């Protein structure tokens, strides 16, 4: 970054607020960014849609499929609010391009409940008041399910460690740990893995 005290400074190229301009001219300056035809399997349903290749999995879910349960909190993989399952693994949907998520089974918070019956982890979050504002909650729940499935819910300490990729600004952490312990103790958690819900 150049010295801003210069009398006149062109600052268009870069600053440190996250709007860093590309060094080279954008591809195909005179026309639109490439659009890809995508096939994605989300919560057991197959979707085909044409999307700008820059679209993240998160924005695709939220803005193009209307699945707004996964939340945007940082767009840099730091907060975990966008956590979804991809072939049974928890991933940050904000760091995954939609084109790269093809061929995987994506499960979002909307894919957990069976009709009116909540998934045991959803019920445990209600029972233990494991949230306040609820914004990080879908990500916490997806992460919590994976945490148990990975075998990382053996103790409160282990749960705290393996749930630390999901930030909660309301400070519900102790209750989140209780909810995860509760479900881990039930032993028969329904896990939405490969093959869909």
């Amino acid at each position, binding site marked *: *970054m150049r010295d*801003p*005290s*210069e*009398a*006149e400074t*062109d*600052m*268009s190229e870069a*600053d*440190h*607020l*996250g*709007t*860093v*301009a590309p060094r080279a001219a954008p591809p195909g300056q005179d*026309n639109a*960014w490439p659009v890809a035809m995508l096939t994605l399997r989300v919560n057991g349903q197959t979707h085909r849609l044409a999307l700008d290749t*820059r*679209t993240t999995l998160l924005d695709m879910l*939220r*803005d193009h499929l209307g699945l707004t*349960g996964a939340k*945007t*909190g*940082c*767009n*840099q993989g*730091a*907060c975990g*609010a966008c956590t979804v399952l991809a072939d049974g693994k928890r991933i940050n949907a904000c760091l995954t391009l939609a084109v790269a998520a093809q061929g995987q089974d994506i499960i979002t*918070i*909307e894919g957990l*409940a069976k009709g009116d019956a*909540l998934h045991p982890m*959803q*019920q445990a*979050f*209600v*029972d233990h*008041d494991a*949230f*306040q*504002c*609820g*914004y990080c*909650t879908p990500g916490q*729940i997806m992460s919590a399910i994976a945490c148990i499935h990975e075998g990382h819910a053996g103790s409160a300490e282990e749960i*705290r460690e393996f749930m630390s*990729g999901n*930030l*909660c*600004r*309301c*400070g*519900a*952490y*102790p*209750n989140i*740990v209780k909810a995860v312990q509760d479900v881990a103790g039930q032993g028969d958690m329904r896990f939405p893995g490969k093959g869909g819900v």
Partner: protein
Amino acid sequence: MNAIIGTPHPRLDGRAKVTGAARYALDNSRAGLQHAALVLSPIALGRVASINDAAVAGLPGVRLVMTHRNMPALRPDAAMQDGGHAHASFRPLEGDEIRYHGQPVAVVVADTREQAEHAAALLPVRYEARPGAVAHLPEDAPSEEEAGSLDVGDADAEWEASAVRVTADYEEPAQHHNPIELYGCIAEWDEQGGLEVHVPSQWAGGMRAGIATVFGLPEEKTRVISPYIGGAFGGKATVLATTLLTCAAAKLTGRPVMLQVSRQQAFPTTSFRPAARQHIRLGATAEGKLRALIYTSENQTCRFDDVSFPGGEILARLYDIPGMKMREGLVRTDVNAPGFMRAPAETPAVFAFESAIDELAVALKMDPVELRRRNEPARDPVKGLPWSSRSLLRCYERGAELFGWSGRDHAPRSMTKDGDLIGWGCATAVYPTFISTSSATLRLTSEGRAEVRCAAADIGTGTYTILAQIAADRLGLTPDKVTVRLGDSTLDPANVAGGSTTALASGNAVSKVAEQAREALFKALTEAEEGPFKGMSPASLSLSEGTVRAGNVTQSLAEAVSSLPRGKVEATDQWAHPEMPAKQSKMLWRAGSPQGGPDMESFTALAFGAQFVEVRINPRTRTIRVPRMVGVYAGGTILNPRTAHSQLMGGMVWGLSNALLEASEVDRNHAAFANADMAEYHIAVNADIGALDVEMLEERDDKIGPLGAKGLGEIGITGTAPALANAVFHATGIRVRKLPIRIEDILG
């Protein structure tokens, strides 16, 4: 009546939140939606020399490049603290002037977010920079303007006569709220010139008034919708410039526009907790009776508004001190306006003061709990008024018992475990009981249900649930038979969800209209021309378990309401505390948010608590861990112990984060916040939090309103940082007088 108030009813919004069905502001994508992206200034002072909007106007999908040259004219609105609704009176894009780093200079609107962000990144802007910008609180800060002052007795004489004295300086950095929900909004103008805004809001009515003012609209043509808020903490109380920019852009494109402010861009464009420095002189007798408090402070603010959060008024209520002198100063810096952030005045002030009290206990070689016991004031030391209720010492007693405080060796560096240094500290938690005003409507329906309508907000605090409990209690229903609608400016006006006021103000309003609806129902049933209650005295009727009763005569509520000519019963009213001046109640929701307290005409009201913290410090790496925290609070009637527990717990978690992690670091070369994202601005994660015990004591308060409930949203954070800092001293013998406390501060 059923005992529903005070039971730990699960959140009524729980299912919506765990299934992803709860719709937050930016979840409302719609057909024809356009996306906005901000271009921020990389200089802190100067002007925009030129913007080559033609360079990006032709890029795919770009519909608008809004700059100061084509921005619609806006009308003024003052900052909320000055009686308006805005976060800041100074607004970007109204001219070419740059007054802080990261100030928006352009808004690019395109068909997709990807297109808008791409074009925004390419927009060529030339600046003329002026040197000399300052975004930090300078070490030699001149406090030329006064933010607050308070005098009790002759503080100088008491100081001179004190046998034991403590003099110390404390410092807190700027901090950012960082709610997990991004700031932003969706704005849409209709063909009749009406404006609808989905924006996370602690104050739908106030935001509507602010937006309507700025765009010259009648309030009834302006609507703010915010049923769910993804964390607010004070940052979503006022109208942000980013909201106005989105509304302006949507006006120009004639289409709905969504702005999602990135995590990085939120640091300069939204609210923050300003940096502060306090200087404390504390004098006492050799027996530990406090005599003097001389307190001065420097509080960071911006150049254009007088936003500051002096804490002296609160500190003066903690202990019996005959001589007090407080002088609080403003320091102007080149930043966007600071704003309310979780216990804005109390968090920094209580850290400094409760650290100083601990320093005094050390100087006196006295148990710090005992020091507080010796200085309990019988009445408000400032106004001489009786307390509405005060249970500080009971909180200490219970907290000490839960924590095992009697096992503490008071000498520093005296306790170890498995080779680690162990420190135990305590501090008082306090928050004033602000008494605000709210209105509500309650309708009884022919389905035997109750509907509550109120423009209050549930920012995660449990408002949906407690209001349903209150209505259910008054109407003999179960809470699931009550529908609560909140967070929409078309509903009955309510106070801002700030200052821990909603439970008290909106709670009393709902209680009042529920009782009115019940009485109206009884009157209508007894005056009806037919029906089982015809001709009876309304006073002989009662309502319980969804049934209207008079002796042996019963009728279900659904049938009773259906039998009435209108098929419903409705009551609308406002609740105001009898000691709230009438003129304050009338100015409700137009200018500012009226608030009484902590001192009213005949009493002073605050909530108190006692916090205890254990730290465990590795003697070589000096890593600080917090294995356990205990907080005991008294907040009058606890409406719902489950949601109240979460509020207090969340406050303590944030308190730890405040004590050990959080600082918005300033790059002094660029007068900019340097760690502007969640990778570098650290907040507590799950692994940072050990055992955490919260207990609420029974406390009766019949002065603050019929419900007797004090607010609990903010008190939880206030005592954590000093208790933790005091524990660090106890473990290491090193007194850290600034936050956050880091390894380098305790190398010894």
